[in-house]
């Protein structure tokens, strides 16, 4: 039996949602939203299945990327033995614990492979030498096997880290932190590879003639900005709701804000580099993807992304005061979450609507359906657990953290 470690920096009742608190109702409210969204998607989707699958894909990718960003956030802190973010780790753990849920939400897409992916049509491949050349990779059975593999690997890592952290709450065994730290380095490599291939399969292969060797890191950059934005919103909302308001301090918010600022710049660097090299070389097989996004109303969206995903948050998040205040930080986070959705929308939708931006009610329905399931499951998990890793060896360090 593992000996009991009695050094508890925080009592469990300081770090749980108290009975009767408004947050206890979130799972039910979100589940109602999910049901409404699913019903609306089913009813409207039968009339327009192509639009449904594209809308579902965007919303699926949005919430999946938040979960993958959360997994990276927690893994990197284990690998680097980071101390400051321990009080925020349970938010990340709850988010990546949604990866098995995302596997279920992926299933509807399997019904729409023919609506989504040109390479899944035998007759399209038959008259296209390029698609024939890519057929050993881009074919339906292998696509499904890869998807199963991605979700198996992600769920395995997610469950391992979630169970480990919850187990430490119960036993206080510091050996769990050491074991998870040793596994974190290899897990980051596996995550980087699977995330890259998943972005190629699910987004890049929408336009199967086009390729970009930077696409994986582009998807990663967006996913990490997305999760940090979510983290800033959730942490600020918790403090406002009187949960962890003495645990998460302006010092922690400040660091979340710095990460948000830094990875907004990183996303811009990657997004621009991908565009810049293709634009400069001007090779027809590479420029098609950007050509589609530089015409008509898609060009307006492209320019809006430059302003909204880079310029505005860059100057907004630069100052110290904005990052140390929950409300102002959450405004920046919510804005960047919206921009992250728009970024994915901009990557996916021009394949369906090359003529220009066509917002559909199915976009809303799919977002409410996927988001409702995601929020319902995550908030249900939050009710059942401590909101911070109660007996992590570095919890005291994190509680006392101050920016120099």
């Amino acid at each position, binding site marked *: 039996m593992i000996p009991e470690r009695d050094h508890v920096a925080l009592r469990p009742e300081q770090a749980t949602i108290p009975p009767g608190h408004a947050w206890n109702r979130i799972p039910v409210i979100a589940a109602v939203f999910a049901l409404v969204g699913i019903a609306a998607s089913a009813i409207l989707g039968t009339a327009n299945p192509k639009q449904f699958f594209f809308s579902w894909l965007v919303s699926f990718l949005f919430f999946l990327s938040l979960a993958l960003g959360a997994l990276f956030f927690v893994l990197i802190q284990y690998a680097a033995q980071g101390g400051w973010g321990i009080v925020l780790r349970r938010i990340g753990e709850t988010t990546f614990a949604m990866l098995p849920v995302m596997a279920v939400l992926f299933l509807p897409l399997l019904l729409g492979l023919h609506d989504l992916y040109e390479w899944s049509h035998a007759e399209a491949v038959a008259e296209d030498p390029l698609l024939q050349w890519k057929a050993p990779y881009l074919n339906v059975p292998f696509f499904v096997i890869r998807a199963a593999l991605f979700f198996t690997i992600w769920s395995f890592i997610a469950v391992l880290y979630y169970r480990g952290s919850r187990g430490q709450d119960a036993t206080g065994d510091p050996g769990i932190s050491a074991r998870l730290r040793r596994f974190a380095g290899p897990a980051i490599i596996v995550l980087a590879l699977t995330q890259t291939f998943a972005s190629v399969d699910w987004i890049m292969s929408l336009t199967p003639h086009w390729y970009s060797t930077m696409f994986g890191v582009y998807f990663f950059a967006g996913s990490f900005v997305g999760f940090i934005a979510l983290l800033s919103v959730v942490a600020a909302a918790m403090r406002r709701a009187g949960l962890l308001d003495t645990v998460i301090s302006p010092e922690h918010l400040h660091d979340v804000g710095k990460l948000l600022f830094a990875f907004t710049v990183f996303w811009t660097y990657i997004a621009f580099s991908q*565009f810049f090299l293709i634009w400069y070389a001007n090779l027809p097989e590479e420029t098609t993807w950007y050509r589609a996004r530089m015409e008509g109303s898609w060009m307006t969206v492209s320019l809006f992304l430059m302003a909204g995903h880079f310029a505005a948050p860059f100057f907004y998040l630069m100052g110290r005061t904005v990052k140390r205040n929950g409300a102002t930080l959450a405004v920046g986070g919510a804005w960047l979450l919206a921009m992250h959705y728009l970024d994915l929308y901009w990557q996916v939708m021009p394949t369906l609507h090359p003529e220009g931006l066509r917002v559909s009610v199915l976009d809303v329905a799919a977002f409410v359906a996927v988001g409702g399931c995601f929020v319902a499951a995550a908030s249900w998990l939050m009710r059942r657990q401590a909101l911070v890793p109660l007996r992590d060896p570095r919890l005291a360090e994190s509680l006392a953290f101050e920016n120099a």
Partner: protein
Amino acid sequence: MALLVPELPKGPHYGILAEFATPADLYHACQRVRDAGFTRWDAHSPFPVHGLETAMGLRRSPLPWIVLGMGLTGAALGFVLQWWVHASAQPLVISGKPYFAWPAMIPVTFELGVLFAALGAVFGMLALNRLPMHNHPLFRSKVFERVTDDAFFISIESWDPRFDPSATGKLLESLGARSVELLESE
């Protein structure tokens, strides 16, 4: 403006130097000197003491604004220089692009922005600290040599409105100073 004030006090005395044995003594003494309303003084330690800037009541440095201004200047300069060269002074068709092909100008714009911001940070810091300074009246003190080893100091300069050679010395002694020394001007 810090840059406009004279470098060192005029008058017979430079100020008073008090030596403390531990970082904790220094920290608490700084709080008291701050609360006594002194403005022209400094603390000296062999290593950074966390929270000392709060204990001293230091205002935030204006350096970030210098860096921002320099960074924006550099970026604007880089962009305008390329614009002028490519679109006005020496228009050349390069790989079929328009004269004013703004994406091609982003790398240089970015690099000049970073360069100017970095130069602003380094030289702005030196200027705000009035460095380089080749000598300082504090170096007359023999005990001050230990500031890079194992001793902690507070120096209060004589041009502080609240400075008084005997009263200020007594205050520092009452705060637990190991030694108090009146330093002459050069």
